[in-house]
Each structure stands twice: as structure tokens, then as C-alpha cells.
């Protein structure tokens, strides 16, 4: 090769190397991106969201029209696959209204408030960091907006748990993908369209029931008790599980009355996922409705298992009480939790 040709080749290689170097982007710290994603957005927005959930052998697709105004006011209109707006949920930050359009009924409900949880937000973030590895893997565009892509994997098994697309400017989670223990996709959420108009009409976050609508109060009430307080409030000794899946910690208990029966709701968190155990009288019969159920064997007897969009539901009787476990966990894990309830 002549000197001239060698020089040209060297220059070409150098240029290519320089371009490659420039393309290596400066990626932010995953923890900082996740904190931005977990915070309430500072700017109001309006968007259209598409959600698909896979559970058991079923799939469910829905759309939402979302209006959000800081710090925590929102209006969500849930549209089913036929295009019908089935429910409207409006919150002024303290009170929520759920309007069931088809039946002309309005539910007034008080949502749980993260500020009152026994596990503070910093503790919960520490739990997340302890149980999961998070990494910003790059940038992608969602709904026309540049986002950081964050992958979250289990620390022990490196299993992918979530992938999040977080708006670089506002911290809004514009897309998420959740995975089951076997690696299959459990659900996807994606903003198809989003706008940040600066301010939104205040009327969007006020709810006036339509004339003739029946207004009722939801049976659900928030509560965040320690075990001993729950025993006094509920009048029954709590029977929590003796074994928990790796990374899960007890958060609090709530006491929920239902038609004369008292439910204790034990709440557990691993920083990302929630698990719930309900304890109630044996005379309670859980009606699975449209969800398919199947019998499963476990030590000490049998149980009923169902698959819902929110995870698996395991229900069994034990020593004069009935227990229900809800979580996005493998059946073997749920069974082990259940068998440790004594």
C-alpha cells in the first residue's frame, strides 16, 4: 500500500473512532432518574394512555384519558375496547369520586395516602436499592418526548422486573413494562399522546354527580396500623405469615369491616411490588366472579387459586379462619407464604 493510501486509511479510521466516541452518551444515575419518576410531576398534563394486561390465559386492553394537576389532583376516564367511557375517576387530592356511568352510581372513596404509611418513602427507596439493580440503558422517544430507559432487575437472580421510560424533562413515566417471574410480560402501559399545556381547567378536578345518580360510600377505608393496634382495633388476634419472600418486609395492617365480618389486611412491600394477606372469619365465602379458579394442594389442606390482572389470588381456610393472599409472585412462593400462616 502506498504511503498516501495508508494515510487516507488512517484518517478514515480516526474519523470513525471519533464518531463512535461522540456517540457514547453521558447517561444519568439510575437512582436519580427513578426518584424523578416516583415524585409527583411538577407540571400539569393531559394525555391518552394505552394499557394491556396479560393474566392467566386472558388479555385485557383499555385506554385512559388522563388529566393531572400538581400536587395530586387528577381526572381519569377509563375507556373500554368498544370505545365506551365506562368509569370516570376524579380526585381533588383528598376525596375521590368513582362514577360508574353505565349504572348511574357514584362511589365516594378515600384513597390510601403514602404519607401515612409506616414505611416512609426513603425507607421504601432503600428497600428498592437493596433488592433490585437499576440501570439507565439509553434514551428513546415516547409520545414525541425523549425519555431515559431504566431497566430494573432482581439483585439475586438478575431477572428483569420492570422497564421504565421516564420523561427527561418532567419525570413523568411515559411507558412501563412489567414482567412475571418467568420473564413473560405481565402488562404494558404507554402514553400515546401527552401535552403539558401550562395550566388545566379547574373544573376537570371537581366532580358533581349527574342528576339522578345514586351516591354511595365505598366500603374501603385507608388505615396503617401496627400489629398490636390492629389486634385492638379489629378485636381478633392477627395471624401474619412466619415466612416472607426474599426482600419483602411488613409495612402495616388495615382493619376493614365487611357486612359484619372483620378483615385484617396485612401489607408487604419489596420496594417495587406489593403483596397483601387478608385474614377474615372462616364463614366468609370469597366469590371469584368471572375469574377462573382452580384447586391447589398445600400442606394442611387445599386452597383455591385464581389469576387476576393484579397477580395471583390464593385463598384457603386454616384453624377457624380464612386467608387470602394477593401478589405478583410464583405459585410456589405464595404457597410457602400461605403454609407459614399458623
Amino acid at each position: 500500500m502506498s504511503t498516501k493510501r495508508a494515510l487516507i486509511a488512517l484518517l478514515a479510521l480516526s474519523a470513525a473512532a471519533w464518531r463512535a466516541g461522540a456517540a457514547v452518551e453521558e447517561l444519568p444515575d439510575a437512582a436519580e432518574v427513578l426518584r424523578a419518576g416516583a415524585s409527583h410531576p411538577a407540571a400539569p398534563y393531559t394525555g391518552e394512555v394505552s394499557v394491556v394486561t396479560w393474566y392467566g390465559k386472558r388479555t385485557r386492553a383499555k385506554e385512559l384519558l388522563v388529566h393531572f394537576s400538581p400536587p395530586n389532583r387528577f381526572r381519569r376516564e377509563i375507556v373500554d375496547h368498544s370505545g365506551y367511557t365506562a368509569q370516570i375517576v376524579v380526585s381533588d387530592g383528598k376525596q375521590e369520586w368513582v362514577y360508574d356511568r353505565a349504572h348511574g352510581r357514584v362511589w365516594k372513596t378515600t384513597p390510601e395516602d403514602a404519607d401515612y404509611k409506616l414505611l416512609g418513602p426513603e425507607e421504601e427507596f432503600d428497600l428498592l436499592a437493596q433488592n433490585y439493580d437499576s440501570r439507565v440503558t439509553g434514551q428513546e422517544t415516547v409520545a414525541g418526548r425523549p425519555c431515559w430507559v431504566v431497566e430494573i432487575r432482581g439483585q439475586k437472580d438478575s431477572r428483569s422486573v420492570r422497564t421504565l421510560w421516564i420523561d427527561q424533562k418532567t419525570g413523568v413515566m411515559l411507558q412501563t413494562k412489567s414482567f412475571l417471574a418467568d420473564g413473560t410480560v405481565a402488562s404494558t402501559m404507554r402514553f400515546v399522546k401527552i401535552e403539558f399545556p401550562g395550566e388545566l381547567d379547574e373544573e376537570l378536578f371537581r366532580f358533581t354527580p349527574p342528576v339522578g345518580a345514586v351516591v354511595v360510600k365505598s366500603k374501603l377505608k385507608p388505615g396503617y396500623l401496627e400489629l398490636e393496634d390492629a389486634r385492638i382495633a379489629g378485636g381478633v388476634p392477627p395471624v401474619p405469615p412466619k415466612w416472607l419472600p426474599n426482600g419483602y418486609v411488613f409495612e402495616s395492617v388495615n382493619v376493614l369491616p365487611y357486612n359484619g365480618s372483620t378483615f385484617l389486611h396485612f401489607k408487604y412491600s419489596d420496594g417495587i411490588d406489593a403483596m397483601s394477606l387478608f385474614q377474615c372469619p372462616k364463614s366468609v365465602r370469597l366469590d371469584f366472579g368471572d375469574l377462573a379458579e382452580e384447586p391447589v394442594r398445600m400442606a394442611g389442606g387445599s386452597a383455591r387459586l385464581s389469576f387476576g390482572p393484579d397477580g395471583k389470588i390464593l385463598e384457603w381456610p386454616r384453624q377457624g379462619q380464612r386467608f387470602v393472599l394477593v401478589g405478583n409472585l410464583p405459585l410456589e412462593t405464595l404457597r410457602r407464604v400461605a403454609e407459614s400462616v399458623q
Partner: protein
Amino acid sequence: MTENICPAGELLSAYVDREANPSEERRIDLHLADCGACRSRVRSLGRLKTAVRNQPLPPLPAALKADLLALARDAQARAEGSWRGRIKAFFELLAASVATPAGAAAAAALLLALAWGGWRFGAGTNVPVDFVLAAHNEYARTMPLAATERIMTELPVQITSAGSEDKEDVY
């Protein structure tokens, strides 16, 4: 029934009582989206249901309890320990007790009380799975990286299916 044809009164009544089957309920949901007349009928049925539920039961006549117990003892003697005889005697007792309007109302009240007692204390409390799922999701919403939009596609239906406190207001 198609979405465009108004459902019959009985079916609409079943719908208000949540006794229509899921596919009928779905068709009525879609029909109500476009039919103001049927929405008005649904509201009227809902108000009637509330009004009936809030009606007080008639008072129990003082001598009725003694009469019922006497009838029960006679019926038991006739049955001579046979379970078929006991069932027959029970229905004879019931027939005798409903011979008068007051007796009918009181017997209905007694049966309702027994049924409620059995349901409350022994026969089981039916709880829709949506009650526990709604409570779970209310908690799941408070997680730092909660999949809020996904949860909100399920939670409203779960809240409405979980049931409500008895008091209702019509706006």
C-alpha cells in the same frame, strides 16, 4: 336483544338488581350509553329499590309467637321423629301462620331473621373478590414506582363491585 332495542322491563329490573348474566349486562351497558329513556327507567328502578328497602317491617302481633310455638309442637308430635314428617310439619306450620296478613308478614319477618342469622353466623358471608383486590390495589398505588395507570384501569371496577355502605343518596 341487540344494543339498539330497549330491553324488556324484567331484564332491566334484573340488571338493576345485578342479577342479569354477564353478557346481558354488557349489552345493556352498551344500550344505556345511547338510550336516555332506558337510563331514566334504570334510575327509577334504583329509586324504587331504595324506597322498598327502607320501608319498616310491620310489628309482630303479641300472641303470634305463642301460636307459632303451639303449632310447631303439634306438628312435631304428628311427625313422630321422621325427618320427612318434620319438613312436612314445618310447611304446615308455615301455611297456618300465613293464613292472615299479619301472620304472613310476621312469618316472612321470622324467616328473614332466621336466614339472616344463618347467613351472619353460620351460613357464610359472600364477599366479592373485588373487595380484596380493591384494597390490595389501593395499597399498590402508594408504592414509589406504582404502575398507576395500569392500576387505575382495574381499581374503579373493583371499588364499584366491592359494595358500598348501606346509606344511599340520590343526587
